[in-house]
């Protein structure tokens, strides 16, 4: 450890969707690494300690080190020469970088998609169909007396969710923390989160929709047959008891995870939960919130929505945004072999996409921006090594509840930020677009002269 130690207060951890902004980071400025992250959870501590500066070239083409400028030129030419370029990732970078990425995709008439399409995409679709009664996390801390988790394991995925916002947190109308609340957990198995719950409801796998629909029916005063237990694993007694608790609480909240959105039923499941939330507002105040994973996936949804009108899966090939999940989402454009170039930002699809998608990714020129070497950067034609957001760069991230937070960088990286690379790339692409337009009009003029 060197003598050159700096403390950064109120720093933000961008590892998960909680986006905790109360980090106190102790930074060794000579060694360029974070040696302590006070207030961080186990995931956050790993996030901070593992993002050191590695000795690597800032840019590579086909595995050979090149200057950043050369790499920008090659990336711009690659995208301009493609007929079906796709942009993907974006959930682990700043909104400032995301805004540039959408601009690039707009200019090249490409297709842009985020990791939302493989996590809470179904919740996005359900939102479009049903709407959503929702809140910022501080409202849960201050008011919620009934907290229900469905299909998630926050103890391991969002370790500070319970203490900071939902269970033990003390607030304005919940001065005694956990004593003022009832916590319910719906899942198909016991997990590390189960011990927190006052009531654990274990349902059969793939029966989320049926349980939610039965709850809706009971809320509306309909009769449900006792055979529901055989079907779903949850007794009618339990459901009736839960419905009474839901209708009689003062401020109720659902948090739902990928255990709901990525099992059989998908957006029908999310939709059923959102519809149940709406129904309950006839009796009391009730809200719901998808527990988003990546640090700024919520920002990506927001940026795409304000720039294009749609949250993910957006195609510009006709010169304006079109939305069609299943057609313009990345797993699909790759698996069907449509994309002929890919700009992958802060994401590693080669490690987690279906085989057909990865096979196609290997066969097309790929441009990557990532602070680390990944399976995707290894197969990239152009690979940029970038600074880590929140550790080396400022910028904005949106917490899972849409609250925007400014980042406080801990130490400087020798690598440029995603925003810097994308801003340069956008400028170059725009130049090429304008030149192409001029060429076209020159062509037109000469044709008319010939005529």
């Amino acid at each position, binding site marked *: 450890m060197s003598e050159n130690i700096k403390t950064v*207060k*109120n720093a*933000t951890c961008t590892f998960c969707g909680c986006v905790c*902004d*109360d980090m106190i980071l102790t930074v060794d400025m000579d060694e360029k690494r974070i040696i302590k992250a006070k207030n961080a959870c186990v995931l956050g501590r790993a996030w901070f300690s593992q993002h050191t500066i590695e000795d690597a070239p800032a840019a590579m083409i086909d595995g050979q080190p090149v200057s950043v400028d050369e790499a920008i030129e090659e990336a711009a030419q690659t995208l301009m020469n493609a007929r079906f370029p796709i942009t993907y990732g974006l959930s682990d970078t700043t*909104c400032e970088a995301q*805004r540039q990425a959408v*601009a690039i995709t*707009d200019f090249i008439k490409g297709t842009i998609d985020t990791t939302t399409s493989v996590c809470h995409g179904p919740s*996005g679709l359900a*939102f*479009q*169909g049903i*709407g*959503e*009664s*929702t*809140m*910022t*996390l*501080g*409202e849960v*801390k*201050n*008011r919620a007396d009934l907290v229900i988790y469905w299909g998630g394991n926050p103890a391991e995925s969002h370790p500070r969710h319970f203490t*900071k*916002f939902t269970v033990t947190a003390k*607030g*304005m109308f919940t001065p005694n923390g956990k004593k003022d609340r009832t916590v319910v957990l719906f899942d198909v198995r016991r997990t590390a989160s189960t011990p927190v719950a006052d009531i654990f409801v274990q349902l059969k796998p793939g029966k989320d929709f049926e349980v939610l629909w039965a709850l809706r029916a009971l809320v509306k005063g309909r009769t449900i047959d006792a055979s529901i237990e055989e079907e779903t694993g949850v007794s009618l007694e339990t459901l009736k008891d839960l419905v009474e608790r839901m209708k009689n609480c*003062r*401020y109720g909240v659902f948090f739902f995870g990928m255990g709901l959105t990525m099992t059989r039923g998908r957006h029908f499941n999310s939709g059923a939960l959102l519809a149940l939330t*709406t129904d309950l*507002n006839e*009796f*009391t*105040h009730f*809200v719901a919130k998808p527990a988003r994973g990546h640090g700024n996936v919520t920002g990506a*949804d*927001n940026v795409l*929505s*304000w*720039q*294009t*009108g*749609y949250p993910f899966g957006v195609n*510009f090939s*006709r*010169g*304006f*945004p*079109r939305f069609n999940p299943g057609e313009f989402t990345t797993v699909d454009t790759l698996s069907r072999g449509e994309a002929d170039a890919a700009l992958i930002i802060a994401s590693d699809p080669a490690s987690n996409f279906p085989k057909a998608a990865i096979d196609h990714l290997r066969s097309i020129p790929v441009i990557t921006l990532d602070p680390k070497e990944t399976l995707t950067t290894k197969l990239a034609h152009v690979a940029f090594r970038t600074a880590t957001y929140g550790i080396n760069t*400022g910028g*904005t991230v949106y*917490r899972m509840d*849409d*609250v*925007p*937070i*400014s980042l406080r960088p801990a130490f400087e990286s020798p690598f440029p930020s995603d925003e810097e690379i994308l801003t340069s790339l956008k400028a170059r692409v725009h130049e090429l*677009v304008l030149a192409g337009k001029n060429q076209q009009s020159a062509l037109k003029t000469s044709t008319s002269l010939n005529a």
Partner: protein
Amino acid sequence: MTTSLRIVNGKLYDPTNDIDGESRDICIENGKIVDSVDTDAKKIDAQGMVIMPGGVDIHCHIAGPKVNLARKLQPEDHRLDPHPGSALMRSGTGGIVPSTFTTGYRYATLGYTTAMEAAVTPIGARHALEELHDTPVIDKGFYVLLGNNIFLQKLLQQGRTEEFKQAVAWWINATKAYAVKLVNPGGDEPWKGKRNSNVANIDEKSTETDLSPRDIIDAFIGAVNELGLPHPPHLHSNNLGHSGNVSTTMETMRTAADRRLHMAHIQFHSYGGELGKNPVSAAQEIAEYINSHPNITCDVGQVMFGKSTIMTADAPLAYMLRGISKNKWVNADTECESGCGILPFSYQENIYVHALQWAIGLELFLLSQDPWRIILSTDHPNGGSFMSYPKLIRLLMDKEFRKQEIKSVNQKAINKTILQDLDREYSLNEIAIITRAGPAKALNLKHKGHLGVGADADITVYDEHEDKELMFSAPRYVIKSGKLIIEDHEFKQDHIGRLLHTSPDYDETIIESIRPFFEKYYSIEFDNYAVNDSYLHDHEVIPGIN
């Protein structure tokens, strides 16, 4: 590209400088209107054309958390109205809640060059600023929601009025806002904490704070006027949309006595009749009060038939309307600060209430005796899109057209109004007031809304046409900050526009009063709350009036 420009031979409508249709040259240099320019400056011949300052929208919802939720909510609406990009401009989608780029470009195509987002939560200010940065051509700002702020109410409850004033000033600075917005003051707590109920009476005391809506409104009018903010409190008063709310509206205006107050979308607050029954028009009573009280300004919030989206910090209102329309519905609670409701909606000619709302808006315009204090708005997108402004202008300027339109709406509703008896037609000069000079004055934007030397060179040139809807739909030239954005109806260049905000002085010790409350009840760190200057793109601090 900023150029020197000279516009010649056009008919000027510049009410601030008492120019009513006279032919004058306008010279432009470095983004401002100047006395003269070099003879080799680019010349625009505006023979047969009407020249006005760029339009100023004093009340619309175009950026920030709730607007983006409403955008995300309606892919089916975007799909019908794509907005293609070009090598110079970004693409986007339109519909009732357009994407940010499309919003900016479409305002420009109407000749509007300034627009104010009327309701942003403090914690959502960064979001609004990011979207406004992506809203091109126009200058823009936003009003920050403080009317249901729990900390501010605690100060009032404890009688700490001086600290209250300082805290209001701090919040304006911390969010880079232009004005203070109050929405259904006192209504959030019953909504969030008392099973979705609401406050019904302006003098009903809260059991938590012992404050009534009137107490809160009175305190804000006092603080904002003492601080001398450029714009007075921008108030969405209680009981919006309810039959018989005229008494609340009158009492609210009386609370101001002779102090400055802006009443937002007053049409929605001008209903007689009994609660729970069909409303009738109370436009005459409201118009009479406003006519005789020069301290009051208002925007109308005209209802236009067709698609709308209810988006409001008045969450109980959106829920009430959801009970009628059963459409998809969004509620969004913001900790310690605000509520929010969103609902896709449509106004239909044959429905009594909708036709009545439409007629009341027109009555208010036509009964007003001082165009400077009644401002054209549709509360976009609540009463309808800003894209319907040209049609609204025609309704005001063309009584034959109006009569024709009246025939096609619910006649029972029309009979509850005096609209058929009103023969007034707005002149071009009056239109220039209610869409330009008036809002600029109400906002205290001294460099906007007029064409005098020193004004911002935000200028619209229209072809003169009998059909005023056509005329105001498609200006031939639009100049923003001296840049020729639209020339011969064609977009020539992009422009980012400026963020307008204000920055009242405050006593910094107030921060230490806010901090302990914040640390206890908010979910982010206090030191991460205030917005720093990196969120300002090109910007301008508008001074107060003191």
